[in-house]
């Protein structure tokens, strides 16, 4: 319980104390799943569903707003939740952490990314953020997990597409909300296999 609350407690601590606690936390978290996500009602709801779908598997939730590089290094399996802002950008808080991500060694780590998008109103940059983030972590040595088929979506362009597949899980709660739960369940089952 103490470890689960470390992130919240860190907000009240000095920098050197934060680092100490994070390292302590990292030690105990190895081999578990770290789920990094940005603030937002829609994303938070998805995060809860993913966590639920994992069942007994421990999934640590880390808000990206306060995440540090050491947090990412702490896990072998990472899930990143990122919505696409405006015409194909990372949200501000994710964008802020990119310079730090670019300094990390992510070799031997598996990263699965899910993203929220609106294929009807933003068909030219549907879930672009998945693709942007995927390329960042790939360059740092991570292996992408959780790639999914782009069938049953209708959009024009996306930076998240490679070989007709999404580089992660694309969710569209605005236009295909009825498919969200099933997509999450299937994706989590896929991740359970790929994260082994």
């Amino acid at each position, binding site marked *: 319980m103490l470890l689960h609350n470390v992130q919240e407690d860190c907000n009240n601590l000095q920098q050197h104390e934060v680092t100490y606690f994070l390292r302590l936390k990292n030690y105990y978290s190895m081999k578990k799943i770290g789920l990094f996500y940005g603030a937002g009602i829609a994303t938070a709801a998805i995060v809860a569903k993913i966590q639920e779908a994992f069942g007994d598997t421990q999934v640590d939730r880390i808000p990206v707003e306060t995440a540090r590089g050491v947090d990412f290094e702490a896990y072998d399996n990472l899930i990143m939740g990122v919505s696409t802002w*405006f*015409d194909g950008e990372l*949200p501000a808080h994710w*964008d*802020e952490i990119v*310079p*730090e991500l670019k300094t990390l060694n992510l070799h031997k780590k598996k990263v699965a990314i899910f993203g929220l998008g609106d294929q009807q109103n933003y068909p*030219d*940059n549907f879930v672009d953020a998945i693709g942007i983030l995927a390329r960042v972590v790939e360059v740092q040595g991570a292996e992408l997990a959780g790639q999914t088929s782009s069938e049953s979506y209708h959009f024009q362009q996306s930076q998240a597409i490679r070989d007709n597949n999404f580089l992660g899980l694309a969710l569209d709660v605005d236009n295909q909300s009825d498919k969200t739960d099933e997509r999450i369940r299937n994706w989590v089952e896929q991740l359970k296999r790929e994260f082994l």
Partner: protein
Amino acid sequence: MKTLDIYNTDKDILQKWYHLLTLGRAIDEKAPMHQRQSLGWSFHAPYAGHDGIQLAIGQTFVRGQDFLFPYYRDMLTALSAGMTAEEIILNGISKATDLTSGGRHMSNHFSKIEWHIENISSAVGTQAMHAVGVARAMAYYNHTGVAITSIGEATVSEGYVYEAINGASTEKLPVIFVIQDNGYGISVPKKDQTANRKVAENFSGFKNLKIIYCNGKDVFDSMNAMAEARAHAIETGSPVIVHANCVRIGSHSNSDNQSLYRDEYELSYVKAADPLLKFRRMLLRYNRFTEEELLAIEAEVKKELSIANRNAIMAPDPDPSTVLDFVLPEPYLPAKYRDGTHNEAGEKTNLVTAINETLKSEFRHNPDTFLWGQDVANRDKGGVFNVTKGLQKEFGSKRVFNAPIAEDFIVGSANGMCRFDPKIHIVIEGAEFADYFWPAVEQYVECTHEYWRSNGQFTPNITLRLASGGYIGGGLYHSQNVEGALSTLPGARIVYPSFADDAAGLLRTAMRSKGFTLFLEPKALYNAVEAATVVPDDFEVPFGKARIRRTGDDATLITYGNTTHLCLKVAERLAKENIGNIEVIDIRSLIPLDKQTLFESVKKTGKVIVVHEDKVFSGFGAELAATIGTEMFRYLDAPIQRVGSTFTPVGFHPVFEQAILPNEERIYKAAKELLEY
């Protein structure tokens, strides 16, 4: 080129940026308070959400090399380019010491002309033409620098932005077009402007054009994009579009209420993307600054703004007695032909040849003279009427060249090129025929505004030639007269000669004068025998000097252009018939107008008839008649008569043209009635 990021950027640079970002935002947030206190700033377009790209534009601008054309939302751009907080506020509250215009121009139009942060219009995107024009001069004079212009994404819908980008692409000119994309044109969302979410993609097929996309909310991405753009423009001499994705955190302006068309969710997520807060968080996250250091900068900004604000408020207000200053610059004053007449004898020259030879003569006289227009510069041809024949052959394709069929671009790029150096004078053929000039009226307005709007700091040295009028069987679109409409705009001289010598003399004066002159050519007279005269090689006609072409005592016939010759024939006929002796005055110059010559004639004759080819209704004759009626009423013995076109377009069939345009019979009838009154 070094790519800047949060790790490798020097701390003193980061400090400067944070200072500028914080100061800019503080002014942006203070501006509405000035309006609430009735201090001014009644137009304020907040820039919050454009912070990254505006900081980058200003930081990339190199004083002494570049020309910057900011748009009305570019407050941080101006501040970042070096203007002080006090200078920004002086413009905001329209003080006499406002660098843009001394309070003449609307607030939130920031400029410092001595640094070539240019004074621009409120008509969105018009400055893109000017940037292309000044870049043309940079290329011609081998100047190392770029022209930077910024616009909102909705402005790309304007046809003249397309014309400007097309022109820069065609001519390969070092222009950086920054598109600050905040998703809205006032309340109109981007999807209603164009199909591409990233409007710069509309230009992806343009040759010689590089397009760079950046996050305009991110300082580093914006800085890197602008640095890359400037380096590319200078290295290749080619244009670049920098498409910067921004957000508009506030309303379009203080007259707009965005809550009427943006919901709470949208307003909350644009606030979450606030570039200033993002930059601040990064400075802390990456341990480049401590909280205490940032608070110290913020405190310093607060103090700086307070002092600037106090100084600006104490600055003098504009003096209304100066309102007539800087309408027109002082013209060239002929030394030899002070009244614009001569007594030279010899071989006659027709009107088209007189214009052609004067152009060549003035091109030899001033090596910084240029000419362009549609169809004006082919090997054996010089426009439809061969007015410019031989100019390109003698002066080369860098000084005399064809323009695309884009009238607004022809005028706008001339306005821009003039900004490079006041020694430049540009002659443009505004359109093949005056009838096709209307798309350029927007840039015509800009040319007329510049001198007054800049408080005398800039005037475009342009002679705008147009082949005008009818009597050639040209119908609706080859017969129009435009002077009636254009004379309502202060800031242009308008001349309309009838004879070859006057055409030569007025053209020479126009090309040697500072400022903007509309030179109308009666195309029906280009090769007409009656318009041919002896033309002294150095003939000059001052502006505002009418010419009495026939003296008389019984009535004053005031005219110009094509109808001068009809009037002279009528006067002779009436004299022969012993009906009356009419004085015929060719005003030659509509603006400025030689009221003295007209009034002296009216005193003598007591009767006035005004004749012109343009429509009677709202034609320039209405102004002439009203002026004489108001100022010379006591000398009039009869109502002033007016003869001109019917209030219709000019029909194509000869019977229509004859019925519509003034002719000898109609002038004769009106003059006879007047004489018999």
